[in-house]
């Protein structure tokens, strides 16, 4: 790059380069202008507005609004629904993210080491990722149905009384987590499969020379460290996707029974778009964004520190 610039400045007089540079910069502006305008209109401005609205008592349908300072935020942290929603989201994430990660990794390892039916298995496990979640949630509702559902029918055949999967408040979050895991494990699996194929074969041979005889030794010595970047990425994306759970809750439970499946995005949706309390819902949105930002920062930190294998 530097040498190119040097030869250019030798062959052409300085003003010429200036004109060229200016022309290039003008073209660049033309090419990025539509994107800049749309980013400002659909990301930056709404983002500023949501922070602003969080400090007001704005409600859709009322003409005027006033500043309330941190009142919305104070209300948030004594709002039982919101607190319930936060803890539900945390619990849901704490189940779905690790289980779907481990399942994805396990499936990838099994499929990678098996010669038969590789593409069939990959398709089968990946299918939920490509399916319409709202539709498949409806199917799960049927499977989970306490009296006519196949799952409880199967349990009855072996003499067990199945729970009321989506109808009992101590069960509903776990049932939703099962759907969440089913839906995301295949995605993680595909990412891990890509990570596995990128590991150079001779590393395994080298490990064997070094005395790593069992499959477990080889996994701990080679596979796991080499998968570092993939794993970190899968962790982040799994957590972020789990925090954003909405479709299954809206379709199947509407946050019930007894707010037992109230999750963050659903609560924001209810407050903002059903009760139309835009100011209050904006404050919730700011909290939601803060959670996402913290997760992202953690990922960048870890990426910087931990992973140097590639």
């Amino acid at each position: 790059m530097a040498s190119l610039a040097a030869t250019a400045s030798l062959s052409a007089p300085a003003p010429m380069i200036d004109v060229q540079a200016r022309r290039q910069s003008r073209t660049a502006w033309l090419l990025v202008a539509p994107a800049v305008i749309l980013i400002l209109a659909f990301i930056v401005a709404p983002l500023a507005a949501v922070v602003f609205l969080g400090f007001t008592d704005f409600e859709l349908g009322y003409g005027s609004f006033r500043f309330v300072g941190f009142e919305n935020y104070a209300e948030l942290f004594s709002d039982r629904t919101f607190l319930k929603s936060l803890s539900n989201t945390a619990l849901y994430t704490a189940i779905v993210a690790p289980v779907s990660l481990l399942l994805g990794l396990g499936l990838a390892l099994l499929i990678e080491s098996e010669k038969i039916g590789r593409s069939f298995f990959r398709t089968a496990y990946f299918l939920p990722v490509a399916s319409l979640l709202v539709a498949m949630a409806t199917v799960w509702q049927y499977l989970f149905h306490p009296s006519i559902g196949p799952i409880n029918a199967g349990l009855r055949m072996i003499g067990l009384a199945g729970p009321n999967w989506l109808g009992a408040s101590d069960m509903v979050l776990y049932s939703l987590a099962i759907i969440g895991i089913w839906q995301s494990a295949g995605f993680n699996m595909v990412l891990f499969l890509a990570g596995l194929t990128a590991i150079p074969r001779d590393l395994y041979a080298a490990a064997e020379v070094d005395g790593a005889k069992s499959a477990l030794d080889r996994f701990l010595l080679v596979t796991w460290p080499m998968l570092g970047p993939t794993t970190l990425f899968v962790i982040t994306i799994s957590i972020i996707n789990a925090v954003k759970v909405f479709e299954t809750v809206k379709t199947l439970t509407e946050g019930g029974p007894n707010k037992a499946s109230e999750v963050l995005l659903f609560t924001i949706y209810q407050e903002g778009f059903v009760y139309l309390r835009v100011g209050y819902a904006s404050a919730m949105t700011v909290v939601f964004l803060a959670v996402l930002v913290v997760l992202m920062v953690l990922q960048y930190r870890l990426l910087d520190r931990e992973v140097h294998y590639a």
Partner: protein
Amino acid sequence: MTAAPFTLGRAFRLGLLILGALVFLAPYIFMVSTSGKAQSEIFTSSLSLIPDRFYFVENFAKAFSRVSMPQLLWNGVVVCALILVFQVVIAVPCAYALAKLKFPAAKLMMALVMLGLLVPIHATALPLYVAFDRLSVLNSYVALVAPFSISVFGIFLFLQFFRAMPDDLIHAARLDGMSELGIVARVIVPNAWPAVTAFAIFSVVAHWNDLYWPLIVVSNQAYATPPLGLLYFRAAEAGDDYGALMAATLIITLPLVAAFLLAQKRFVEGITMTGLKG
């Protein structure tokens, strides 16, 4: 590894994989089976997968009569296609400029892109809804498409791809007298085809499946996308006619699943590529 003998460990591994696959496919199997059962048979809660009496025609007829399925699918196609076209047409030139042209604001632009990557539609939905309400554009394709016309993720993905392209290619085109826009259209895009395909798959899957935004801006069946339409259908059915409900889910799930089965390799590549770089 070559022609491995059929050991106990291997049998165990295969058994595990087959069992898992059955569990993962069970919802699809029951969906197809139940869409062919009569209401009375569903209520006997038998586990048999083959319906006693084939009720497919009746269930599908019901699914088609309650909610206009062709309209839903058409809306899904229109919305996804419009979004994709806008995203590509706007993101590709922008990414090209950021990757290959020198201009002072490039750094600032990169910061905007990174900021945008952090912000999901859920965070901007409230002000956008208020604004769309004021502009009276709720219940329209405009409302469904506009916020997604810009994909910072697209810019990010294309940027990575363009950076890896050799500069010589572009210099040669410039010497041939091509304009920068001509370079984008005739040199960059044809060479960026893998990235465009990957992005297209990512975008279509995301927007075909999205419920949040359509739920907010659409209250009129005429503009309902497939997920929203299915919600309407469930409400209209009061939930318990599982035969018709499964028929409706089957119709709505099929297009994307069929596309996936036909272009599997591309799908998996697309998801891995976009996933790993997101």
